[in-house]
């Protein structure tokens, strides 16, 4: 079985600061990490490979420094890493990103064998759209299984795979046919620790680097800013509310009572409604 996992290197947004005057991101010194959601996809892929045999190829599109994330994926046990990097890809929105990644997956397919499953994370913490997975699926004509919480039985004879998929009010049990694209739900597994052997292998391993041409991109107008139908016109910081909170001072009294008074004073209808709620009406 050949499995491709798409991972993205993202700024550790817990550490992102916004410049108070210019409203721009202060990137200096912000460490990068593998998008946390992608680790669930990677681990699931590794487990499937361990169970069924085969290979895991990790793929990322990003600046040359995204090689770090790929090396980390190799430490976790991925067999091969491909970095798609070219200035033509800069400024890609979802549609342009899926064009580049889908083209690269086609190239991977020709070079290293046809993937049975392509995994992505549920979403990124910087782009945060959850749309790149579905986009890749459509472009490659793969069946799309999003928000998968469990990958179950694989029937080699019929080429089917069973998955559990999170839907709005419950869980769908689905049977689909390979090749499929799966976006993995968070919290479904825990990324393994790399073994010593994998760490040593990863340090020496070669990361395959492709530019647009290497990856087989013929139409550059579908890449980067040019290939992006969406345009960011304005970036701004959320405005503060007009006034700060009114602080409740209890004085000598009971602060709990003072707080409740303040709540009901501000929302007079709430008292009756809450009485009904509290009584389970």
């Amino acid at each position, binding site marked *: 079985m050949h499995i491709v996992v798409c991972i993205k290197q993202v700024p550790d947004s817990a550490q992102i600061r916004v410049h108070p005057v210019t409203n721009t991101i202060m990137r200096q010194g912000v460490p990068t990490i593998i998008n946390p959601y992608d680790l669930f996809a990677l681990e699931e892929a590794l487990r499937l490979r361990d169970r069924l045999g085969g290979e895991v190829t990790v793929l990322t599109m990003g600046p040359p420094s995204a090689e770090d994330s790929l090396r980390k994926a190799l430490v976790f046990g991925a067999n091969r890493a491909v970095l798609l990097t070219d200035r033509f890809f800069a400024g890609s929105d979802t549609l342009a990103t899926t064009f580049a990644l889908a083209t690269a997956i086609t190239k991977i397919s020709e070079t290293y064998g046809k993937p049975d499953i392509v995994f992505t994370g549920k979403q990124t913490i910087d782009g945060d759209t959850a749309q790149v997975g579905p986009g890749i699926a459509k472009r490659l004509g793969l069946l799309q299984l999003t928000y998968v919480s469990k990958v179950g039985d694989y029937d080699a004879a019929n080429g089917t795979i069973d998955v559990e998929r999170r839907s709005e009010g419950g869980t769908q049990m689905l*049977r689909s046919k390979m090749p499929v694209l799966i976006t993995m739900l968070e919290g479904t597994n825990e990324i393994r620790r790399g073994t010593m052997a994998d760490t040593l292998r990863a340090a020496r391993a070669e990361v395959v680097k492709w530019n647009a041409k290497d990856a087989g991109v013929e139409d550059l107008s579908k890449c980067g800013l040019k290939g992006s139908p969406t*345009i960011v*016109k304005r970036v701004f910081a959320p405005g503060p509310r007009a006034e700060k909170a009114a602080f409740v001072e209890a004085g000598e009294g009971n602060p709990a009572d003072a707080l409740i008074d303040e709540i009901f004073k501000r929302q007079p209808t709430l008292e009756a409604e809450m009485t009904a709620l509290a009584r389970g009406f």
Partner: protein
Amino acid sequence: MSEPNKAPAPAAAGRAATKKELPEHFKAYKHVWVYVEVERGQVHPVSWELMGAGRTLANKLGVDLAAVVLGPEGEPLRAAVAESFCYGADLAYVVASDVLTDYRNESYTAAMTDLVNTYKPEILLLGATTLGRDLAGAVATTLLTGLTADCTELDVDADGSLAATRPTFGGSLLCTIYTLNYRPQMATCRPRVMSMPERVEKLVGKVIEHPLGIVEDDIVTKVLSFLPDRDSAKSNLAYADVVVAGGMGLGSPENFQLVRQLAQTLGAEYGCSRPLVQKGWVTSDRQIGQTGKTIRPKLYIAAGISGAIQHRVGVEGADLIVAINTDKNAPIFDFAHVGLVTDAIRLLPALTEAFAKRLSAHSSDKLAS
């Protein structure tokens, strides 16, 4: 949805000059559509929230607002169509087929893209639910158009373009995104981000029936079974009238019980900030904020929560935000309406008791009268 690396202000300024140059074949695209999400007979309320937002856009543009309803023929489907008119739709496009009984990407994408290609809307809005996100991504890629995900604000510009605003960089900034030269302009919004419009009884509206172009045999993915959530509260948090939440200030999972107790006394739902989920104190379906649920209760009580921007975006729609925090400079006081600077671990039990007294006194009044 745009990659953040094109977001910073200087780069954006250059592009701001970009003008709309709509290709000839897109000029026929007109009207605003809202996808009405019906799953297992139930309409997701986010559809009506979007209908409210869609109405405003349609009025500004002077065009029609249409509902798109997909599903198996039957009473629930027809009820959803009728409800669409009550929430403001001028007309409804309906694809009724047994193939659409369970949500599957293949059949729903086929239905939606076919409708778009036939009737050509300029704007298409969907809920950012698991279903809506699954569908929107596939439809946008199939149509090769732009999609702005998880918008917090929708507007139209002087030239009639959709201005879709969404958080970026983990919520630290907002950006406004345009799909100038492609149609339809697609956007999703999370449940509870837009306010619920008023429902007005309305009996008629134009219904346009459209056939589904594919049959069951064309669809590879089969639904083996469906397991509904046992904990119905999972889906209720977003729609609760009163929500009590706790954060790291509570210090321990035991103290989080105080939040549960207050919620129980109030008949409210409880929630938490993200670190509590990461620590495994509370399950992830209780997380409130950018990567959790968006809530719009009448009353939100936050205990020991600092009010980071990612939390703030999930609660800003609440009518009344009450914050309890030991630090009077905590950011939560910048957007809470009422604040109390005190130890939540001590206040919560007192608050539970005082509320219990107050509310039970009331209900016995009522029972007596």
